[in-house]
Each structure stands twice: as C-alpha cells, then as structure tokens.
C-alpha cells in the first residue's frame, strides 16, 4: 500500500492513522477495519440512519462518506458519546423510557439526538420528530424515542 493510502483523523478524541484506500467507505473502515461495531449497517444506501456518526460535530451518514474525506477531521461514533462510566443523559433516557427495543437503530438515534440537543436544547415534539426522520426504527413506532429525547432535554439542566 502506498504511503498516501492512509487516513489520519481524530477518532473519538484520539488521533488515528490507518491504511485506507480511496474508495473505502467510512462505515466499512469503522466496522470492518477498526472493529468499532457500535455504528450499524442497516441499508448501506443512506435511508436508515443506523450508520450515523458525527463528523466535526455534524451527524453524518457514514455509509455515504468516503473515509479519506475525513482526513484531518474529528469523527465521533457512539463509542465516543458514551461516558467511561455510566450512560449519557440521552442514553439513560432511551433505556428508562423504552426507546430501544431490538436496539439495532439505537446507536444512530442516540447520535442524532445528541447532536439535536446540542443545537436545540429544548426541542418541541414536532422538532424532535423532524430531526429523527432520517433514522428508521421498525420496532418502537417512534413514540418512546420522542419521549426519551424530550426527557433527556429536560434532564440536562
């Protein structure tokens, strides 16, 4: 592999430099090369949101992102949103209010919700519904997900 076929970025706060060919998709790099399996592959085509990560703080579909274009940026996965001990407010609310069933969509939702609350700490229900409308959940009917995000927004100060 040539010297430049690598990508250097900040992954969950830690500098990373890993081999990466041009056509490598970020999701594949995270899951298959780095074994950061919290980020899920649901459709691979941008529809389900299971693969959502933060790139420079912005929720991003990792299945539609070239890994090499994260060069020099900061990538945060669900692993990076989890405190060393315990759970974040969003995570806590998802557990307590039943917003996770099979759990496969959940990391994506947690990432999206975390970014939403960062930007809009007191969203209305309608704003929450809109914000999560790129994340597909087949189990919950979304009601408890909206409940949990609303609860997390109240609990954080």
């Amino acid at each position, binding site marked *: 592999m040539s010297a430049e076929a690598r990508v250097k970025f900040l992954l969950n706060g830690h500098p990373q430099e890993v081999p990466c*060919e*041009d*056509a*490598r*998709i970020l999701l*594949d790099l995270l899951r298959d090369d780095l074994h950061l399996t919290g980020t899920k592959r649901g459709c*691979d*085509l*941008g*529809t389900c*949101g299971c693969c*959502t990560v933060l790139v420079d703080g*912005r*929720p*991003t*579909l990792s299945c*539609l*992102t*070239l890994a*090499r*274009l994260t060069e020099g940026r900061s990538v945060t996965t669900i692993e990076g949103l989890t405190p060393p001990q315990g759970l974040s407010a969003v995570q806590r609310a998802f557990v307590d209010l039943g917003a996770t069933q099979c759990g496969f969509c959940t990391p994506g939702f947690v990432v*999206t919700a975390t970014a939403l609350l960062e930007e809009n700490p007191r969203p209305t229900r309608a704003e929450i519904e*809109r*914000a*999560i*409308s*790129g*994340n597909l959940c087949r189990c919950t009917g979304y009601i408890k997900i909206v409940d949990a995000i609303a609860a997390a927004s109240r609990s954080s100060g």
Partner: protein
Amino acid sequence: MHLDPFELHRPTTVDETVRLAGALAGRFDFLAGGTDLLPNYKMHLNLKPHLVALEDVDELRGFSADRLGAMARLADLERDPAFAATWPSVADAVGEVATPLVRASGTVGGNLLLETRCFFFNQSYFWRASLGFCLKADGDRCHVVPQKEVCYATHSGDLAPALMVVDAEVEVAGPAGRRRLPLADLYDAKGDGVRRLTLAPGELLVAVHLPRAARGRRGRYKKLRVRPAYDFPELGVAVAGRWTGDRVEELRIAVGGAEPRPRRFDTLTDALVGRTLDDARLRELAEAIGKSVRPVHNTFLLPDYRRRMVAVYVRRAVAEAREGTAG
C-alpha cells in the same frame, strides 16, 4: 456494499479543479456531498475511475442572500432564518429534501445536478442485468417507453424548481472559462434524457446567483411524496410572485419531480401579469399547467395521480404564496 476502486482527487481551487477535469476528461465524476453519487456507485451505475472531490475548493463553499456556493450544505441553509425570509420558496424546498441526515451532507450543487431517477435505473447491477440494461446505464433501450430511444427518467431534485421561480442563475467554470446562465437553461430541453444537462464536458458548477430583482417575491414550494421524510419528490411545485392587492405584478411557476426536466410556465403566467387572479382564473391556470405536465410510470405513485395533483398543488402553492409573507 463496497465501492469499486477509483482514484480520489482533492483540488483546492476552481482553476485546479477545471484543469483536473480537463485532464481526466470523461473518466471522472465530481463528488460533492456524495449522497446521490455514492448510492449510485454502490449500485454500479456509470462508474468512473476518478472522483474529483469538491469539498476543499474554498470558492464553492458558503452562501449569502445573493449567492449560494455549489458546496453550500442544505443543512446550513435550512438553519438560516434570514435566508428563509428572503427566499421562501427555496427555503421550503431545502427543508423538504430527503432527510435531515442527507441534508447534513447534501449540497446545493449536488441537488441541482443530481442524477434523474427511474424504477428501472435506481437498481442494483444484478437487478438491471436480470431485466436487460437500459439506455441510461449499460444498455440501449428504454423499458418505460420502449418505442423511443429517449430516457424519461425523472428530474427529482427539490431545489431546481424553487430556484427557477426566483430567476436564479448558475455560474459554471470550464476549460473555456466561466459563464453564467439561467438555471432553467442548465437542463437540456433538446437532450435525449441521458444527456440531460447543458454543461460542457468538464464544466463545474461554481455557484447559484439569486438576483436582487427577485427579492421580495412571495414564494412557496409544495412537494408530493408518499412520506414526509426520505422520499424524492413525486411532484414539486414552486411559486414566486408579487401582488398588489389581488393584481398580479409578477408570477413564476415551476414544476419538478414529474418529467425529465424541471419546467417553468412563463407563457401562462406572463399572461396574468396586470390582472387579478381570482379563484376561477387560478383554477384555469392550474388546469392548464396540469394538462401540459406528463409524468410516466417510473416512480412509486401512478402517473395519472401525479398528473392530477399538478393542478391541485399549483393552485394551493399559488394561494399559499400569496398569503405568505413577502421576503
């Protein structure tokens, strides 16, 4: 799903991009947010050995009330209330694109230039091979209208009609230098559908310019889709206009999501300037537009229904635009 190998280029200036484009002529695609191109690549649709990523080209970034850089992100536009107040039809359209996650990466340029869509085209290689390839990729016939050697794939971008009604112009840069053209002229009226743009090979979309003269038009974009998220337009109607009382001073209507190109209906709307647009006249106008739009059966909803909705959506969009606040 992996991507076949390609070489990725990351120019930083428009000139460098244009030079690269010239050197790679015919063997590359531009990559903006990638939300349209990469799904198509994953389905092995018209792959090229080179990708020229536009994200480091400074000049393409950002937006103001007069200019949208080609690489302006839809999510950023969506979050700017001042922009929404100035350009209501455009803001409506931006908020209706795909999903918030797609809008986070998706760009203005990518939206205007996105690949047209068809049930026979947006399928995996396996799927297409099993039926026999079509004109638009790898094949030589059309499954929708087999009699003709023309592609009817639908223009499915939300922004184009919304920008067309405010007379937006696009700035492009190519081997022959820079030029500006009305957005409406970006879509090739004489093409065979496979060739659908008037861009010369290697030409790059730099920015969209929003004319000052169009500021203050009231506007609305209404989109027909099955679900309020995810779905591409099955029809998109954009309106912008100016009224004095009930009298029309200016009116523009464009329809997208229904045909291979977004289209404006200036002849019909110009005829109304200086007249009052009462309910009956509005109905007439809407019906006339509805009659001229001809969707084919290559999307989820049936063409008859989409066509019937044109009149309803036009009528409502005009009524709502008129009620709306001016920019």
